Each structure stands twice: as C-alpha cells, then as structure tokens.
C-alpha cells in the first residue's frame, strides 16, 4: 500500500537503487536522467496526438459539427493517420532558400518547447529537475522559439513567410513584458523562482488570490502561443500559413508539434503558478499517486479554455493587438505588481494576505473596467462627431 501510494516516485527510487547496485554513482545519475528525459519527451509527443484530436473535436462541436470520426471510435486514430500522411509527403526545400537555416529552424523550435517539461512539477517529487530558477528558465526558453520562427521565415525565401515571422517577433516582444511582470507578481508572493516551491507555497490557489494577474497571464500566454485570437503569425486567411508556408512533410510536422507541445507546457505553467499544481483540497496528501492526474486534469481545463477562446473570438488587427499589449496589459500588470508588492510587505499572515490581495484585485478590476468604459465612450462620441460632421458637408 505504501508502495502504491506514491507509485511513480517509488518506481523511480527502486530503479535507481537497483542501478546503484552495479553502476558507479555518476553512471546511475546519467541513466536515470536519460530515462526521465525520454519519458518527458514521450509525454510531449503523446500530448501532441491527444491535443490535435481534441482541438478538432472541441472546435467541431462548437461549430455544430462532429469533428474527426472516421478512424477508430470517435476518430481517436485521426492524428496517427495525419502523421502517416505527413511522413509520406515529399520534403521540399524551396529554390533560393538558405538550406542550413531552413533545415535547423524546425529542430530549434521543438527543442525548447520540450525542454520546458524538465521543470514542470507533475506531482509530489515527480519532476524532471527542481531548478531554483525554474520560472526564469522557462521565460528564457520561450524566447528561443521566436528565433526559430524568424529563421524559418527568413530562410524560406517567401514574402508571406517573412511577414509572418516579423509579426511573430513583434508580438512576442510585446507580450513577453506583461507575461514576465505577472510571473514576477507570483514570484514576489511565493518568494521563490523554483516551480516546486511556487506550487508548495500556494496555500490558496493564486487564481483566487490574484485574478487580475491570472487574466493578464492568460491573455499573454494566448499571444505567446500564437493562438487565436492572437494568431497573427499564422493568419491563414492573410498569410497562407505564416512562417511555415514553405515547409512540407516532417519539417511541417515539427512546427505543428511544437505548437501543441508548447500548449501543454503553457497549460502546465499556468496550472503550477495559478491553479495550485498537483494540489486538490488535500487529496494529494491522502493519495500522492493522484498528483500527476490532478495536474493533467487542471492543465486540460486550461487547454479547454484556450480552445473555447479560440473558437469564439475573431483574429484582431495587428495594431490593436500591439496596442492591447503596450497600452493596456503592460500598465495593468505594472500596477498590479506594485499592489502585490505593497500588500505582501504591509500585511502579515498567509490567509490575511490572500484576502487583502483578493480585495485589492477586485478594486483594481472595478477601476480598470470604469476606465475602459470611459475610454470607450470617448472614442464612440468622437467617432459619432466625425460621422455627423462628414454628413453636414454633403
């Protein structure tokens, strides 16, 4: 029973003990590390299979369709069929392309996406590594993907691909700032950058404590993932397919997989930072084995919200998108950071801080909504004036 209670950790400990019996210490560490990384990569790729199918199913349902339903019950083998189709496609390098950059871009985009999994805490003592700068590591990694996108766009020798890549860089630079600022709010409150510490120090999930920070982070995350309504990078209706227009076959699949690996990684980060990670009302204390299941269930809910948002909102214009980041999210997250710092310094006690923070956040939200509606009224009256004055001239 004791063994089953924390099954995954105990299997790992038993295995490393068994290896230590006949291998030197460094070799044991190496083998265990390799196995853990392989497991993490498998998690990433299985996530790609499930998420591609799930996204098509959910968005189909929203649009009163059924979604893939041809192969297997409920079409669950659809991603395998897609994979086989993609594997058999010709690998084309366009004329005038920068060959090596074109070749490297799909590899560079998927590696950092998979590397994020190393610091995600899936459960109690269940993680790739407990870096003391885990969240900084994630922020650093998520910028590498942009370089790959720029490489792909530049090397393709295609205007549309290059335009998509430019947009990607503009978008990432804009949305990195509110994202990092809301991460700092979380780090300020927990007092640690380690993902494990962030989860363990959350007595109350931060989505309740800091709803504004959570919303800012969600919006920034959607933009970082290049998901609708911020999918300016792909913008199928304007840019063919954006930066991966000139990719085919397995290289295209790499970009596709990176998107979904990133989606689960981002959902995992949100789960760890705002939803309390593997904690669920003390259930994880009774049955530690449920930790990873709770974690993935919460991530699934976050992903469902992303899909829901994607299927609801139309793509916004690029100037509006950058305006949203620079004029709205950056000031909001800065103000929020300041308030979180103040409350954290002035108020003592775990639950008291939570309650005061929640109250402060709600007041903040009310002020933001008031300012927004005022600004909206102003623009509307201006537009009305413009229209009426135009009509006078006729």
């Amino acid at each position, binding site marked *: 029973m004791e063994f089953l209670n924390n099954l995954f950790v105990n299997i790992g400990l038993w295995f490393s003990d068994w290896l230590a019996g006949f291998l030197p210490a460094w070799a044991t560490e190496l083998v265990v590390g390799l196995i853990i990384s392989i497991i993490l990569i498998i998690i990433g790729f299985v996530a790609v299979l499930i998420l591609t199918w799930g996204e098509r199913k*959910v968005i189909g*349902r929203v649009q009163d369709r059924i979604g893939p339903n041809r192969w297997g019950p409920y079409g669950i083998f659809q991603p395998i069929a897609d994979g086989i189709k993609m594997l058999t496609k010709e690998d084309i390098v366009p004329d005038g392309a920068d060959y090596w950059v074109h070749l490297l871009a799909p590899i560079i985009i998927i590696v950092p996406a998979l590397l994020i999994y190393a610091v995600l805490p899936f459960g109690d003592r269940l993680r790739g590594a407990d870096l003391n700068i885990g969240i900084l590591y994630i922020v650093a990694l998520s910028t590498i993907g942009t370089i790959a996108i720029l490489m792909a766009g530049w090397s393709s020798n295609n205007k549309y691909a290059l335009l998509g890549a430019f947009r990607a860089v503009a978008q990432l630079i804009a949305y990195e700032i509110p994202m990092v600022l809301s991460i700092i709010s979380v780090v300020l409150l927990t007092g640690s950058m380690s993902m494990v510490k962030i989860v363990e120090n959350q007595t109350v999930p931060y989505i309740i404590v800091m709803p504004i920070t959570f919303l800012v982070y969600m919006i920034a995350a959607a933009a970082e993932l290049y998901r609708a309504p911020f999918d300016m990078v792909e913008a199928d209706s304007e840019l063919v397919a954006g930066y991966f227009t000139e990719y085919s076959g397995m290289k295209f699949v790499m970009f596709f997989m990176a998107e979904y690996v990133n989606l689960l990684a981002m959902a995992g980060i949100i789960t760890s930072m705002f939803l309390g990670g593997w904690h669920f009302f003390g259930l994880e204390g009774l049955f530690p084995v449920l930790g990873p299941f709770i974690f993935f269930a919460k991530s699934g809910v976050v992903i469902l919200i992303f899909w829901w948002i994607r299927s609801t909102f139309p793509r916004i214009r690029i100037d509006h998108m950058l305006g949203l980041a620079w004029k709205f999210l950056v000031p909001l997250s800065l103000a929020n950071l300041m308030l979180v710092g103040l409350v954290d310094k002035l108020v003592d006690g775990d639950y008291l801080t939570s309650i005061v923070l929640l109250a402060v956040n709600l007041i903040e939200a009310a002020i933001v909504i008031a300012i927004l509606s005022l600004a909206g009224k102003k623009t509307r009256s201006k537009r009305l004036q413009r229209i009426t004055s135009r009509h006078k001239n006729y």
Partner: protein
Amino acid sequence: MIIRGMLKGLSVTLKHFVQTYMGHTGIRDGERPDPTLGGLFTVQYPEEKLPMQPRFRGALMHLRDAESGKLNCTACGLCVRACPQGCIEVEGKGKGKERRASTFTYTLSRCIFCRLCVEACNFDAIEMSHEYELATYTKDTVWDLDKLLALGDQYDVHESGKDWN
C-alpha cells in the same frame, strides 16, 4: 461594453458546444434534422441518408399493376419518342390489350433525368426513382427490364405522377 460583449460571445459558443450533446446528437434514422432543436446537423452520409424530396428525379424504374402484378408498359413507344437523348429502346409482344413490353433498355449514362418519358407515358408504366448513387466502376450502364422492375418493386409504387415518398 468590451467585457460584456466578450462574455456574450463566449456564452454563445458554449451554448452550441453543450447543445451538441443535448439536441441532435448523432445519427438520425433517415429524418431531416429539426432546426429548432440545435445540436449536430452533419449528415453522416454513407451511414445515414436523408430522404429525398418527393419529386426528386433519380434513375428510371418500371411499375407493376397493383392487383395483377403484371407490368404496365404496353410498348407503345411514346417514351422513346419523348426522350431527348434517345436512351430508351422498347420492343413489345402480344396483340391488343394483352400487348406488353418484352425488352426495355434504358441507357443510364445518356439519361439527363428530365422526366419527359414519364410525362409522355399514358399507362403509369414508368416513374423516376429516388436512386442517386449511380456511379459505377465499369461502363455497364445499360439497364434491362428486369433491373428496372426490381427497382420499381423496391419502391412499391403503382401510379406515376403522384407525389410519393
């Protein structure tokens, strides 16, 4: 206001998502979907086929008399004359009221489904069926009397020109 509009949109998509589990949820047994009910409207074509409209013009079929079970066609040749494509050939046997068609060939690949042959027929002998899956792998598209009669038996129709189902 911005936020209220966004929430409204989200609620609409959520409503449609939930309706796919509450309203029409899958294969309906050959009935047209009720648009007020919401849910899945996709017709799962090979598994599920919608009933055709009563006047749908599919492949030709031969009708039998309801009581005697004998075929109605008297080989008068009106349909042959009416056909703009010349896809019908008919030969008769017998004299007077006993005269019936002995051979009747209908070249499906030439037929334009105009229903002029049915309009011309004085004996309720032929009618357009609701058969629309007419693609073949071979060029064997000449249908003889047996096949046309079998199709008519399948639909169980004895009068042409009626809006039948």
